[in-house]
Each structure stands twice: as C-alpha cells, then as structure tokens.
C-alpha cells in the first residue's frame, strides 16, 4: 500500500541500485526493512531482491569452508524470512541457494574421489560438511533408478554426522528424508523405484526438464558443467564460491525466463474460441494469454480483484502496463490483450459464479504454491476456484517454480496477510472505523483439490505431483531454515 508512484520512496529498484555500492550487512538490513515496510512485495520482486542479495553475500564471503558458507547463507536467510514470513518466496530462494552450495560441494567431492581417490578422502575432513558415500557422478546425474541402490541408512547417518560437524540446526528425523529426499542423493528405494516406474521415461534427469536445450534449471546445467570440467578439475584449487555464484546467476536467469517458459506451454492449454477466466494483474498470466493469442482467438473474462489489485488490473487491461510495477525497470511492458485482438471482458468479483457456467477454463496467478498442491493467491482466488469446482470447470494455475515452496500449510491463517481495511471501508467513515471490525485479507488459500493443473516453467503438473518438484529443488536439510 505504501508505495505509489515512487519518487523518493525506496523499493526494489532502489534496493538493486544500492546493492552495487553498499556492503553486505547494510544491504541485508535494508532489504529487511523494505520487506517489513512492504515496499518490496509480490513474489517476483522478493525473489529478485533475495537472489541479488545472496549473490552479494556469497560474493563477499571470505574463506573456503563451505560449511561456513552454508551457515552464513542460512543466517541471512533466517533474518530475511523472519522479517516477513508471509513472503514465502524469500525462503524458497534461500533454500535453493543452500541446495546449490551443497550440490557444488558434493559434486566436487564426487569428482575428486573419482579422479584421485586419495585426495578425495583426505579432503573430506577439511571440507567437513556434506560428504556423501562415494558415488560415480556420471551415473548419479542420469539415473535416479540406479542411484536408488545407495543405502539410505548410510546416507542418513552421514548426514547426521555432517550436521554435528558444521553446527547446523537439528534436522528432521530420517522418516521425512526418505519421503522427500533429493533425487541424486541417496533416497528411499521404495519411493524412488515405485515412482521411477512412471517418471523414468518422461523425466530422465533430476531436474525434470521437459526440453533439455533451454533448461533454466541450475542443477542440470551445473552437473553438466561439472562433468565437462571433470577432467582438469582434480588437483586445482576448488572454488566453491565461484561455482555457487554461477549457480545463483543461473537462478537469476531462471527468474527472468520463467514467465516466457511458462508462456511456451500456452498453446497446449488454450484452444480456439474458448472462454478463459482469470484474475489479478499478473504479468505471468498476461504473457501466457498473449502467447496463445498469437495463434488463436479466444475470449478472456477478467475478474477485477477489487480492492487490492483493481488498479493494476485496469491498467494491465488498458495499457498492458502494471502500474504497481512502474518502479521496476526490468518489468518489460507488453501490449495489452486487446491489441492482440482478444476480446476481454472485465467483471466484478461478485459476478464470478454467474459467469462460470460459460467459462471453459480458469487460469489463476499465484502468490505462493505450497508443497501439498495448495496455493496462496490474491484474495478472491478461492471463490473463483470454488465456483469453478461447482461448474466442473478446470482450474489451471500458472506459477514459476521459484514460487513453489516446501512449506506445508499447517496453519493457513499464518500464511494469509491481512491488509489495510481502508481499501474496503473509507477511513473517513468514523462510525464504521469505531464500531465495525473490518478484515481485509490480501490473500486466499486455495486447497489442492480445487486445482486441476499447475503450469510451471518445467511444464504441466498435477497438484499431487508437486511434492516431487519440491523434492527436486530443495534439500531436506534446508526445509527448516
């Protein structure tokens, strides 16, 4: 609420600018205050800010001890997430980067043990974290099935050792590990093999990348990178930092491209003469629809999303520019759907149920996607989803993988942010202010059973499949920051 047409108001762009000149600690504090003041909001802005900050944190990290690096990132991450626990994306990015560090270290260890096993063993006590039983990395990257042969027990004991070594926080017990463990590392044979029966042909690599050539997924790239380097890697000094920074940059690329990658799926989901219902001024959804609009003609029914996003919605519909993002220089403006020859009908939120019977498909933008397949989206989303359910209209959720969180919604109330009731009831109305309690939730929780399909930058997934992507992207040991 606090930001407007910013002149002096701090925000994402001012943060990114200051990041270049300011040392790390003030930058962390600055981001925390921006998050607290809600001057950076939206998943995307949070994600961009967090990645940029972590890149800087890693860049300025001194020393070679990867355990310390993990601890440092984790410490920054904890401060950021506690500043604004409802911006789950911040935690996601931190976890992604942590996973990245672990991966780089593990790959390195693998490589070393492969090349010169002596050095590999010697170096283990030095890089005293994250050692795994020696595996041939060539196999591990490509076949989760074969990989499953590694004994889970062994791995978990190893992990607990490393935990105590690096002084990390206590982790969940092994039970959970076996369920959501990370694929290339040793995981439970049962889950993996059962699952592998189906997933193997479709998803050959850990990253589940449907199209290998433009994979934005860092891990795929990283591992292949490592493989290339494998030959001359052995004795040279191993630079964790540089690799992690490369990884973070890839993560940044992923953030940049995710909208386009999602949009690439548009033609599979939107057909001619369909009536599509959507809400909010989400850039991702707009791009998605625009991509489809190039080839097909359909009708869009846009729900106004009053009172939080209606100005944004209006401006997106009229000009294609999201007013709220005007401070964000990266936000490339695009043509409105109307210009692409699509008929757009804007309706107030109250008309959703009435019009739902005519709608062929609902496309929702999200704030956060949770590991159980539920999602947190702009308020009104649940009503739309429920109406869609009543009319058996398919609900498709468009979301970048970065919004997917390993968090389970144990307490839904905690996830939902309540805003200023002033946008619903004017503050001028003294009687109202004094006598009526107005609640104005900014977000809705939509349970998984109301959603039919998720489209991420990795492709389309059923809600029940999301835990899998979570497992691919986050390490179990990082789930509790």
């Amino acid at each position, binding site marked *: *609420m*606090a*930001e*407007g*047409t*910013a*002149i*002096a*108001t*701090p925000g994402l*762009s*001012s943060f990114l*600018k*200051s990041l270049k*000149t*300011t*040392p790390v*600690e*003030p930058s962390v*504090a*600055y981001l*925390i*205050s921006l998050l*607290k*003041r*809600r*001057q950076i909001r939206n998943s995307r802005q949070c994600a961009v800010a967090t990645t940029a900050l972590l890149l800087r944190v890693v860049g300025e990290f001194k020393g070679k001890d990867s355990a310390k690096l993990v601890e440092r990132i984790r410490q920054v991450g904890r401060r950021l997430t*506690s*500043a604004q626990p409802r911006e789950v994306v911040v935690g996601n990015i931190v976890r992604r980067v942590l996973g990245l560090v672990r991966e780089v270290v593990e790959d390195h260890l693998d490589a070393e043990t492969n090349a010169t096993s002596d050095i590999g063993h010697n170096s283990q006590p030095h890089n005293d974290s994250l050692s795994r039983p020696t595996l041939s990395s060539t196999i591990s990257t490509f076949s989760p099935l074969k990989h499953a042969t590694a004994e889970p027990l062994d791995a978990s004991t190893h992990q607990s050792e490393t935990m105590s070594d690096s002084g990390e926080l206590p982790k969940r017990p092994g039970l959970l590990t076996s369920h959501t463990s990370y694929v290339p590392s040793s995981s439970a044979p049962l889950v993996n093999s059962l699952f592998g029966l189906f997933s193997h042909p479709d998803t050959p690599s850990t990253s589940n990348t449907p199209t290998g050539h433009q994979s934005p997924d860092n891990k795929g790239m990283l591992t292949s990178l490592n493989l290339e380097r494998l030959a001359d890697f052995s004795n040279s000094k191993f630079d964790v930092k540089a690799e992690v920074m490369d990884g973070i940059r890839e993560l940044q690329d992923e953030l940049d491209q995710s909208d386009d990658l999602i949009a690439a799926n548009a033609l599979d989901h939107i057909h001619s003469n369909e009536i599509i219902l959507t809400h909010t001024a989400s850039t991702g959804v707009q791009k998605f629809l625009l991509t489809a609009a190039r080839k097909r003609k359909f009708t869009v029914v846009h729900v106004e999303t009053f009172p939080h996003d209606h100005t944004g919605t209006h401006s997106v519909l009229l000009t294609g520019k999201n007013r709220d993002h005007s401070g964000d220089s990266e936000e490339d403006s695009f043509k409105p759907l109307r210009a692409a020859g699509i008929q757009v009908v804007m309706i107030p939120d109250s008309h959703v149920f009435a019009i739902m019977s005519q709608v062929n498909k609902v496309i929702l933008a999200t704030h956060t996607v949770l590991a159980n397949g539920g999602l947190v989206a702009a308020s009104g989303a649940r009503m739309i989803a429920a109406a869609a359910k009543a009319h058996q209209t398919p609900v498709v959720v468009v979301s970048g993988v970065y919004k997917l969180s390993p968090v389970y919604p144990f307490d839904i*109330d*905690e996830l939902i942010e*309540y*805003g*200023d*009731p*002033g946008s619903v009831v004017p*503050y*001028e*109305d*003294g*009687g109202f*202010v*004094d006598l009526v*309690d*107005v*609640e*104005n939730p900014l977000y809705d929780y939509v349970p998984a059973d109301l959603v039919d399909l998720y489209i991420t930058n990795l492709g389309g997934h059923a809600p029940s499949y999301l835990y899998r992507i979570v497992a691919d992207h986050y390490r179990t040991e990082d789930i509790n920051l």
Partner: protein
Amino acid sequence: MPPKGKKSQAANKPKSGEDEREAPLQAVILADPFETRFSPFTLERPRCLLPLANTPLIEYTFEFLANAGVEDVYVYCGAHREQVEEYISHSKWKSHLSSPFAKLEFIQSTSHSIGDAMRDLDTRGILVGDFLLVYGDVVSNLPLEPALAAHRARRAKDKNAIMTMVLREVGTHHRTKAQGTKPVFVIDPSNDRCLHFEQMPNREGKHFLSLDPVLLSDHREIDIRQDIIDCGIDICTPDVLALWSDNFDFQAPRKGFLHSVLKDYELNGKTIHTHVVTDHYAARVRNLHAYDSVSKDIVSRWAYPLCPDSNLVQGQSYRLQKGNIYKEEGVILARDCIIHPKTVIGRGTSVGDGSVISDSIIGRHCQIGRGVTIQGAYIWDHASIGDGCVVKKAVLANEASLGRKCTVEPGALISYGVSISEGMTIRGEHRITRAKRKRSHDEGCIRSQPDTSIVGIGGYGFEFEDSDEEDEDEIVDGLVTRGHLYNLSDLALSAESISTLNSESEDDFEPSHQRSEAGSFVSIGSVDSAASQHAANFDHDAAASIYDSLVEGHESANIQLELTSLRMSTNASEHQVRRAVVVSFVKRLAQLMKSGSSVRDAVAQVFGQHKELLDRIMFDKNSSSKVDQVDFMVLLQADLAHRESGDSILLSAATKLVEMDVIEEEGMVQWWESHKSSDEEAMRKVRAKTQQLIDFLNESSEEESDDGEEEESE
C-alpha cells in the same frame, strides 16, 4: 551512512531532474512537544518512548520518515533527553549498518517551547533546503511524494509559499480526530492555500470564527474545514524558521505561528498551503484520547503496514491470528482464559485461568492472575495484575501492580511502579504516580508518602497533582469519553496554552527552568510583575538578544549597545534591563552547565567576560545604599531559586561578582540583609550556601577597615 544517501539520491535524479533535488531531504523530529498531556507518565519517561501497541512511539515516526525517503534527521530533544538519546543510539536507526538515514543527530537545547526550539534551529543554520517538521509521535503510512512534489511545484512558482501542511481528511465524527480543541482550516480550494486558522473554541472559549471580509472578496471560493486530522506533518522551507525568529512571541506552531502568519499576510506576504490527503493513515498521538484511538487503529490494521505483526522493532515476534489478535512468541495462556479479538499480548506474559481479555494491549512479561477481566486497557511491560481484578479502559504503566480483587475504573492512569494493594477500587479520575516532583521545592508539597486512601495499606503511590491544573485546566484528554472532560480540555490543552498565558501576563518571562520537571510556565518574573506592565516586549527581546550574543560570544560593548538601543526604544526601566541581563546570563549558565562545564567555569565564562556590561547596568557605585546592586542580586537569586543547584551557582556567581568588583562588598551585605532576599522559603533556601561568602566578607571587611578601606574607595 553515505552509500544509502547516494543511492536514493541517485534514484531521485532521473525522475525529477530539478536542481532542488540535489539537496537531501531533511527532517526535524520534535521529540518533546513541550506539553504535559501524558502526565503522569511523562514525569519519568519522555513521551516519544511511551509504547503504542508495544512499540515506542518514535519508532513510528522514524518509519514514516524512512518511508518518505528522508536522509538527514535531526531529533530535537527536550525533557528526558538522556533517555531519548540512549534509546535511539541503541536502535537500528542510529547503527550505521541498518539505518536508512544518512545522518541522525540530536539537537539539545534549553528551549521550553516549540517556538524556542524553532528559533534555536534557525540560529544553528543546519537546515539548508526544504525540510519536514514532524513530532515524535506521528503515526503514518503516507507516501509523501505527492505532497513534496506539490510543495516544490508551488515553490518553484512562488518563493513565498513557505510551508505545506499535510492533513488527513476524515469525516465529521471520528475517534482519531482531535476531540477537545478542534482546528478549523479555511482553505482556498483553487490553490490549496490556507487562508485562516483558528482553534475551536477560541481563546474566549467561543465557537465563533471571525473571517476577514477581504478573504471573502479576494477568493472566489473558500472551504471552511473541520473534518481534518492535523497530523503535524509540515513541509517547511528555511523561511519558516526565519519567520519564527522574527516573532519572538510565537510559541505554538498552529495557534501561534500559523494563526499569526496567516493573519499578517498583508505584512509578510508569505503563504501557507495545505495538502489534504484522502487515503492512507496519518495521525498524531497528541493526547491520551488519541493514544487510545491510534492504538485501536493500529490493532485494526488501518495503519497497515504499521501493525504489530510487522515487528518494526528488532526482537519483536508478533503474529497475527484471526480477529486481529497479536501474540508474540512465548506467551503463556491458561487453558480456559479467553482472548477476545483486537488484543495484543507481548512476550513472556502469562494469563491465568478464567481471565478474559478484550480490546486490550498488554506488554511483555506481564503477570495476569486468574479470573481477571481486562477490557480496553493498556498494560505496559512488567505489570502485574492480581487474581480477580477488573480493569477497564485504563492505563497501567511499566511495573505497576494491582493486588487481588482490585477494580480499576475507566479513565484511571496508574504510572510506573505504583502498587495498589488488595481490594482497592481506583476511580476513573485518578492518576496515580510514585514519581516525586523534581520541582518539589517550588511546589512545597512533597508527597512521597503513599496515599493509603487511594492505593490501600501496603500500596505505593499517590495521586498525581498537576500544578498547572488551575492555570491551564490541564485535563488529560482521557481514555474515556466524558462530556465534561472535553469541555474542560477545551480550554487549554497544551503548549498552545503557553501563548495564552503569555498574552495574559506578558511580563512573565519563562525562565528556562528544567523542562523535565514537566509543567508550569508560571514564571518567577511575577515577583515584580506589577512594575513592568509597560514595555512588555522588552523583557523578551532583550533577554533573547543578550542570550544570543552570549552564545555567539559577542563583546560586552556590542551587547551593551544593543541593550541600550532596545531600552531606549521601549522605554524600559533599569530594573527591567537588569532582569533581562540576569535571565539571559542564567540561561546561558544553565546551558553551559548542561554541556558539561563546572559551575565555577561557567560562572567565570559568563560573568567574567562581561564586567563592562554588568558595570553599566548598576549605577550606584558611589552612593552609600547600593539599591541597584541589591536589586541585581535579588533578581539573580530569584531566578536561581528555581534552578537545579541554584544555591551553588549563586555562591560562585556572588563570589565572582565580588571578585570582579561588580558588586561591592557593601552591596553584597546589603543584599543579604534586605528583606527581599529572605522573604520566601525558596529564596532562603537558594541563598543558604552563600552564607559562607557573606561570613567571609564580614570578616575581611573588618580587617580591611583596619587597613584603610581601600576596597570601598574604588
């Protein structure tokens, strides 16, 4: 922290492209509004550190400034300066790691009204460009750019547009609006110019607004608005400070400054504008009523994102639950206690079985017993409430404790550390404190004994008596809406009342007695007020000019020249001249001592350098009865009587004066013997220490008389 500064400046540049942008946005926080509306709490804590929804008030102000992109912040401290400085320097705002401000400085001064503070600011010359003037109790999530842009645009067109007031429009009835004295703004809507300002009821206690007919003929359209929260956010230019300096009698920013500047438009040609906003939150916690309503607004999230669960202060961990219940981590609730909506509970607080809490804000580490009912109350940190108590719409400050089965009726204020014993009922009009008035020698009513009729046997605390009650009808604009309360509070609520007082008894000089003593502006000048009804302005002007000269270290001769011209122009008496000198000297002394000089050094510096000046105000060297010298000493004594360590200052000043031969020994002895110097209790008290000097003088004069009285022949 320069990088931050650069950053936001850099961010500014591409969009504005104006030269004026180059100057960083500065802000002045008036941490002490020089009022007593929060008594008795402000006896022990500065107002800006009182907790509002468990967060010190000044945090909100800083948030607002950070939000507005302010870079340089000057905090103008008044009472309890050490506490404010202590707090801020340990907060995130001061640490160079996390502060969004490039500069955060404290300004200390001896001023005791906003007018003095503004004049002091003017002399310091630190504010170069447009600056924000806010109080240390502003709560706002308002983005300031539109107001700033409008201000700058006006300024570019017309250099005389010196100030923009940011006002929040609310309806006719609103809890957060000022209830007692209601400001009325007359605005020309075509250019947002404020044409007239009046507070209702006005000085005469009437609800009439008299408008200059010229206003009606000059403007095609005027709005007379009362549906406004004056949140005390002003965008000022340095001209504003100059205007303050030009007008020594201005004390209050609205009633004094604004009213007069608007009235004298013909004279000074300056215009003041308004920026009325219709969205976002902006309010001032200007009295207890506002405290109550702003707390409610914050809990109900009207000020979002300034909510408890934003955890503005480091270390807070509030979480929002359904129905606007905010709980910090580590709250212990008994299984069958009931927490109703709109409640905030801080860390470590425990609530016993069967207690019911609603609409209340409870601080950290409070102990709340069983079967307690708390409704609409504000309970600060470390308070304890015994089993079976009922607390409604009251404030319990830190470490206050209630025994079992107490009843606190709506409107009661229980200050720091007060303990109430079992079974007592505290009526709504009670304000109970245990702070001794520091000014007690002035009051003559030290009541450190607990008043058992109020707090019960074994309790500790006594009814707070505001010395100004008679003068100002200082009614704490209470938590409870009571008809008569508002009527009383209408009369004078605040610093505004200072100006009323002054206009009525204009010879009152406001000696700068410690503001921390919170209170009265009654002056010692009244000792001889009858004598100086004429030339009323002289006192003020002369004292101020001498004081300024002292601060800047001008030569005696120059001061003398200025003083003489002032005296001539106002036809002031010699007595007045002496009084002006005494007042300004003592003020300077106090300031020097505050900044760390010892009494002796300060005296030597102030008196020692200005022998010439002192000589020129006493003309009785050659006569035998030293009337002028006695007069001077009496004035000095009277002024010091109200000051901290006045007795020792008097001793060293007297010694110095004798040493310098400004006061002759005879004069000193005559003073000692004069009835004026020993009339009152306070006067006797302050001169007690000087006894040793007199004894010495008596002795030496005996000796000297043997030696031929060389001293006296001079």
